[in-house]
């Protein structure tokens, strides 16, 4: 215990004095929430936009008065600076009169005015339905005869699909925190120290290798958890300022939620930091270690996107997959996963951490570690 405390002090002083490393670690906690908040704000603004589109005729387009009147009756007015224009063929009125299909092209830059274009298309289709019904009535047919099935979509989710994906992305972002926040510290304490030839003097001190590894692990774990808490707390703080409620999302955004969510990440953080240390000790240089750690950090991204795109499927007790589902409980008020699932996921994470730390101790016995990088 004594040698652990001494080694911990050395690692702590070394870590906190490396301001660039700490700054890069906590940049994730600051920059990420801002991006998510921006996404939420934009999505909410778009969702709240119910204003009718404006339009104009394209050059050389025909200008049928009944169509203009029908659109105006829906509040869809012409404007000289409108982003979308209608290209109507000269045969339009003749086609309508003859009972043929008249084509209208909506011309727009869909990157800038996709929503307006969709609204215009819907308005034109509605006008087309009216004309169709008139034609059927003239032919002595009830409009219902041409519509044997009327299918309707009714959303039972309290959250819209897009909002659901946004919340999923937010949870994934929070789970990624342990992977990114402490990466530099873990690699510097292992591959960096090896590159600086700092392991050799430590190994010639009368200190158990276990103390040295546990001290390095404790530092990376503490910084990892602190970074995860900072990421979660800052995210919730920033999201409070966004119109997330307009998306129909009810989130718990207080300090207690941040603490519970952080606590749920403890076993995963232990596994992640231990693996990053093992990666560092099995790498020859800091750069090599950082490259492998970065590749490793894509694990939750890949798994998370898989879960996000794949939909539900229940809570799986695997590290990362478990946290993705379980975090919905404190954040969104979803049902809590059962204790067995939590125990399996936590047990697996801690077992992985134990194996990774064991490989670190094994590596410290390896004389190749002291060979030139």
């Amino acid at each position: 215990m004594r040698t652990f405390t001494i080694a911990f002090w050395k690692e702590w002083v070394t870590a906190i004095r490396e301001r660039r490393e700490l700054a890069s670690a906590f940049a994730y906690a600051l920059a990420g929430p801002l991006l998510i908040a921006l996404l939420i704000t934009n999505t909410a603004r778009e969702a709240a936009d119910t204003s009718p589109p404006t339009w104009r005729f394209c050059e050389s387009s025909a200008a049928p008065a009944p169509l203009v009147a029908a659109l105006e009756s829906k509040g869809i007015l012409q404007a000289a600076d409108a982003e979308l224009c209608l290209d109507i063929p000269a045969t339009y009125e003749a086609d309508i009169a003859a009972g043929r299909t008249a084509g209208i092209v909506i011309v727009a830059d869909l990157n800038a005015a996709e929503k307006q274009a969709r609204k215009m298309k819907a308005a034109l289709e509605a006008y087309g339905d009216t004309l169709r019904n008139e034609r059927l009535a003239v032919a002595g047919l009830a409009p219902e005869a041409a519509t044997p099935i009327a299918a309707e979509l009714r959303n039972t989710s309290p959250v819209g699909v897009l909002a659901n994906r946004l919340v999923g992305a937010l949870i994934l972002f929070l789970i990624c925190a342990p992977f990114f926040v402490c990466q530099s510290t873990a690699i510097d304490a292992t591959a960096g120290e090896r590159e600086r030839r700092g392991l050799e003097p430590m190994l010639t001190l009368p200190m158990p290798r276990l103390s040295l590894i546990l001290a390095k692990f404790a530092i990376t774990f503490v910084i990892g958890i602190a970074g995860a808490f900072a990421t979660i707390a800052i995210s919730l703080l920033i999201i409070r300022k966004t119109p997330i409620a307009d998306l129909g999302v009810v989130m718990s955004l207080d300090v207690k939620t941040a603490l519970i969510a952080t606590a749920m990440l403890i076993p995963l953080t232990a596994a992640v930091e231990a693996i990053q240390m093992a990666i560092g000790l099995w790498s020859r240089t800091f750069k090599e270690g950082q490259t492998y750690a970065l590749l490793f950090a894509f694990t939750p991204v890949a798994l998370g996107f898989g879960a996000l795109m794949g939909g539900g499927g229940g809570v799986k007790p695997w590290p990362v997959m478990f946290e993705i589902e379980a975090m919905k409980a404190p954040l969104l008020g979803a049902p809590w996963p059962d204790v067995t699932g939590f125990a399996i996921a936590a047990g697996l994470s801690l077992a992985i951490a134990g194996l990774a730390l064991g490989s670190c101790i094994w590596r410290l016995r390896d004389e190749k570690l002291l060979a030139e990088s």
Partner: protein
Amino acid sequence: MIEVRGLAKTYGAVQAVSDVSLTAGNAAITTLLGGNGSGKTTTLRAIAGLIRPDAGATTIDGVDARHDRIRALKRLGFFADRFGLYPRLTVREHLELSAAVHGLAGPSLANAVQHTITLLDLGSIADRRTAGMSQGQQVKCALGRAIVHRPANLILDEPTRGLDIFAVRLLRDLLKRLRGEGLCILMSSHIMAEVAELSDAITLIAHGRTAATGTPADICALAGTSTLEDAIVALSTAPQRNAA
């Protein structure tokens, strides 16, 4: 006392040492001599338990670091050839770290650290971080770390490398003083003037084997030369002999 018997070590296809034996006694400075790649660092690392020999045995005061690493290292101060200083720790913190791991605490730790700072003339840089320090300052810090706990045995891998004449003189006086206090000092060096003045005994390693052992005078007599440098060159190419 440090003893090495029949040490052999290979790294893949490279035979680093094939048969090295030496005894470094207490109250004496024993120097390990040999060309680049002759196996000096391998031998010193094997004594400190940093590498596992393929054959042979190494002991520090009768304790083999392979079998009881902590007990052996408590008897040792080790100065590595590449220093391995922590750039974000100060000189004082380096000394405190080493002293604390060796069991010192409280006033005895503070006294040991201050004594070492004074001994090595480190006062002006004691509270500076080692990042950006000159080679000489780094050598002194690494040396301080190796002796702060007053070990019974001291291993130094080329300690005079990079030192100016003032620091070399300081080191020379320090080693003589430590020898006078009864320490067993085993060092490797390339600087013949230092070796001739400081060494009570020399072990010459050539081609991974002990080529000769004895006092500097014995080594010269054995080689039939008037200077130690000539003797080392002559004996490095000759079969193994024992001058003692």
